[in-house]
């Protein structure tokens, strides 16, 4: 049953990919890439990877499509036909694809318990998580504790991406009177219409509450910092759609956004430094409390919060950088 669903979804994925490549209307390509993200998330779900599916849904299907459209608003809508070197490119890609397909003949079957990848650290993680960390979600334990440096690197990567976009596009700065008029002029937003406004005002508190739930429930079920940050950003994007850019930027000012971006990464590193000061090594959470397992749980909670804050800040900053600019 899983195999059937998986094959079906992967076939749809191939059809969507061909549609994306062949369409010349860039808007259609962006819409199809939204469908691509949804299909990938369904695939991850079929393969029992719930955390990844949640992240792919939160980031890929919603926010990524929105940001691509924001970029599209600054460019022409049709793809420029570039005929030079198409056959060379096709040849290289076909050759590479054939080599990769040939390489998969040597791979073990999907989910094979005898595969080498399941013999090395995976059993150790599965056995040691209840003993050392004590939380039900092994993915969060691996992400937060056993591979803590990796996740610190990921947060820094997210922060760097946000900084890069802000270097290129820039935020409006503190909202002064002239910029207020610039932002409000000629731009219709959904607040003009009653129905989205009412429904949005009903929903935004629950969306933010759901983001908090996903953030702190990450130790017990699918969830964690990345997903919660994306959902939090989505709630504020909804507010920005309803009330307009000016209102949204006066609620969370650009300075606050940059503080959020950096503050999350700072919190993560700060937890590591606190562990150093308390006598352990960097990011060794066992020293945070009297009982090592409680210390681990407090440490994971704190760093997931740092990740969530940073991701929310970066996604919101990138969205506002696009939205406050395009015409």
């Amino acid at each position, binding site marked *: 049953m899983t195999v059937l669903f998986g094959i079906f979804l992967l076939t749809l994925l191939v059809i969507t990919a061909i549609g994306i490549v062949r369409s010349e209307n860039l808007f259609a390509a962006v819409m199809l890439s939204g469908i691509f993200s949804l299909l990938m998330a369904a695939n991850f779900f079929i393969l029992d990877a719930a955390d990844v599916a949640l992240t792919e849904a939160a980031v890929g299907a919603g926010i990524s499509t929105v940001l691509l459209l924001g970029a599209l608003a600054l460019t022409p809508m049709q793809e420029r036909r570039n005929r030079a070197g198409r056959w060379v490119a096709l040849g290289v890609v076909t050759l590479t694809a054939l080599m990769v397909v040939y390489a998969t003949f040597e791979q073990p079957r999907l989910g094979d318990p005898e595969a080498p990848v399941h013999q090395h650290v995976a059993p150790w993680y599965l056995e040691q998580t209840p003993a050392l960390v004590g939380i039900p979600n092994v993915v969060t334990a691996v992400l937060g504790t056993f591979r803590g440096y990796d996740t610190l690197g990921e947060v820094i990567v997210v922060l760097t991406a946000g900084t890069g976009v802000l270097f290129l596009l820039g935020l409006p700065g503190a909202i002064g009177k002239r910029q207020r008029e610039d932002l409000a002029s000629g731009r219709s937003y*959904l607040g003009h*219409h009653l*129905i*989205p406004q009412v*429904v949005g005002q*009903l*929903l935004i508190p*629950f969306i933010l509450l759901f983001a908090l739930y996903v953030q702190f429930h990450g130790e017990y079920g699918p969830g964690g910092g990345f997903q919660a940050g994306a959902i939090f950003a989505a709630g504020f994007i909804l507010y920005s759609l309803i009330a307009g850019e000016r209102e949204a930027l006066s609620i969370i000012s650009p300075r606050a956004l940059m503080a959020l971006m950096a503050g999350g990464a700072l919190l993560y590193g700060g937890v590591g430094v606190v562990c150093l000061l308390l006598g352990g090594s960097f990011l060794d959470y066992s020293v945070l409390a009297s009982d090592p397992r409680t210390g681990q749980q407090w440490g994971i909670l704190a760093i997931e919060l740092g990740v969530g804050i940073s991701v929310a800040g970066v996604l919101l900053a990138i969205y506002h950088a696009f939205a406050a600019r395009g015409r």
Partner: protein
Amino acid sequence: MASWLDALSYLLLLGGGAFVLIGGIGLLRMPDLYTRMHAASLTDTMGTLLVLTGIMLQAGISLATIKLAAIGLFLLLTSPTATYALSNAALMSGVRPNAQWLDRRPEP
């Protein structure tokens, strides 16, 4: 009692699946944008509600039921709003509905 609940749940699931399928067929075969919107949104919401109610009956009283009710309530609120926003945007940018009755109104 349990089998009655099961039968009702199966009926709801079947009905929901049928509505979802009808919506998909309508999305393909309808001639105009607005008729497609009509087909997609109505059957979407109805099918979702029926399927979720069917699953809720199977789940009994548990946390899963509350989550399903939350999903159902959320989809009930947002799906029509999205359709409204879509049709409003389409109308505002000039997509005309394929309405021919305007030409055949009787003379006063």
